[in-house]
């Protein structure tokens, strides 16, 4: 019997190409045909809020499942409130390489469009 999960869309979370490539590679190396990335928001750490990621087999009861860029992402309902609108990417940057999260939906203001670098 399948667990009772709901299906969400990319408005909840979007996996960009770089992150997708890395995740699919991870499953391949483990010899797994499929798997899911769990994203949870946890309190604590040096900042007040952290994204926790884990490789899991699939959704659990009450989870929200999103398929984006060939990757299944599962999120518990409470974390979904925080995660909403996020994009997951992977940076190859030597210094700060790794997964990155941004929430582009939060920006709705206009600006004069000039970039500024200090």
């Amino acid at each position, binding site marked *: 019997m399948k667990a009772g999960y709901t299906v969400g869309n990319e408005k909840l979370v979007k996996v960009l190409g770089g992150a997708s490539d890395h995740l699919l590679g991870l499953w391949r190396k483990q010899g797994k045909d499929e798997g899911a990335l769990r994203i949870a928001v946890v*309190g604590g750490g*040096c900042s007040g*809020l*952290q994204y926790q990621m884990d490789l899991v087999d699939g959704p659990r009861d009450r989870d929200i499942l999103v398929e984006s860029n060939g990757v299944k992402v599962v999120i518990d309902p409470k974390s979904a409130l925080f995660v909403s609108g996020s994009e997951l990417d992977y940076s190859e940057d030597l210094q700060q390489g790794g997964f990155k999260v941004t929430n582009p939906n939060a920006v*709705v*203001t206009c600006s004069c469009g000039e970039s500024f670098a*200090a």
Partner: protein
Amino acid sequence: MGDIGNSMSEVIVGIDLGTTQSAVGVVDSGFPILLADEEGHSLTPSAVWQGKNGEIEVGHSAVRRAGTQTVITSVKGLMGRRFSELQDSEKTYVTKIDTGFTVTTEGDGLTPEEASAEILRKMKQIAEARLETEVNKAVITVPAYFHDSQRAATKRAGELAGLEVVRILSEPTAAALSYGLDRLGEAAKVAVFDLGGGTFDVSLLEMRDGVFEVLSTSGDTRLGGDDFDHAISQFAAKQLDTDWETLAPLEHVRWLTEARRVKHALSSEDEVTFRIPFVGDVPMSRADFDQLLEPFLGRMEGGCRRALLDADLKEGDLKAVVMVGGSSRIPAVKERVQKIFQREPDLSQHPDEAIARGAAIQAGVLAGVVREILLLDVTPLSLGIETMGGLMNVLIPRNSTIPCKAGEMFTNAADGQESMKVRVLQGERELARDNWELGDFRVPFTPERRGQARVGVEFRIDADGLLTVLARDVATGADTLLEVGSTAVDVAEAQVEKMVSESVKFAFEDMNARVFEEAKLKANELLPAVEIALEQFQHELSQEDLQAITSARDSVTDAIKSQDATGLKNAVETLDHATEGLAALLVEKASSALFSNSQD
């Protein structure tokens, strides 16, 4: 030369060299993962077959030869021991040689180290195939009770396999790492309960100076899931009036295989039928199974109590109890562990993979591949500044990975303005007043006409979560700095939830308010300009045009009064459109002074 480059990209794998099965893992993109062989198995039986001509097979293919040929299994327990230390039952399948002993095979025999080396070589090959790179370094796990010569033998086995063993890691420490218990902090004491196929180990650990120290270890090298299979088989044999002892070896294998199936099924079902074709069926309930387990559970309990006693600890001193090993899945085992330690044990990690995963984490730490990237520090709420009309202008959206920086250019709202107030805000609401103020400061700049000054504002959050706001007058290059501190990211979860849920709750009203404020700003720009232009050029306009302009102007003023956001937005657009002719006239008359005269 090239040392730094090499050490940064060098792969170190973690290997669980187990009694019955082995696994190899690595930290990849921050995740500790186990690498699968070409058939997709992440667990390899610790079985070695040596043929007459010295050919070797390891793992699943070696296991398939068992029954008809001699295959080395459970060689781990023989590592680093002298011939004289062996028990009589162990001596039956070894041959004494000058330097120790070899284990009997179809060929010349292998020393325990050589046999283990073959398993390790296989793990190395699996890793190299999956990672598509050479692997020369490894962390290998050993039981906590392994003494120096057994550890040294393990290390030699690694070297024979072409691996530099950068660390020998105790299995309970590996298990603790895979459960993330290192995050419990200094002086945290934990229990690791490991019940595998053939051995039982329990260890109490304490975190000291960032590493786990084994306080005590106890167990039984002859207690595990295999015993339960035997107990089930013998129970069934009794029910079927069959003499277990006189059954042929091949029959034993059949019965034990069925017993294993029943054992696994009883972890999730209440009753399962033990079935041997042409012999009979035996219905077995979980209660029957629990009764069979009782003597084993008693021995387990004894081991746990001894470990507590040896470490001089009480149940309440433990911050966590984790369980690994395949037999941890049995409900009665879990219940007993909970009773002994008076704490719900954590079983969330895959019991057969946890130790290898922990070894991979240790290897990752030694290789400098941090695992922390799985815990991304993000900004819990959006950060921005207040702009004209009391609006929130977001610079760093919420859920942005820390560290980060973002900047935007702002300008003066009025002619001759000498400074600008920067209010640093946090929150998801559209209006500045609904968000939280983290600080404010004044940025002085050279007085200019409205919209001419250029002030760059940059938000920067460092790796420690500290926010610094910098404002620069582009004309002079003068910087003004504000250190906001950690409040930008250090927000209680409940507060974040409140802010986010309110932003959802008031989304419509907020958007409306923003649309209204933005339209009002535009209207306040447009209206005085229209008044001045009308004063000068009224007589040059057609009656219709004049009518259209004044009516559009009136609806703008009305909409401002009635706080009608959509109405105002539309009215402003209409007025903008209606004054196109007027604007053309203005350009024609080259009245460039219009805007400069607007607000003196």
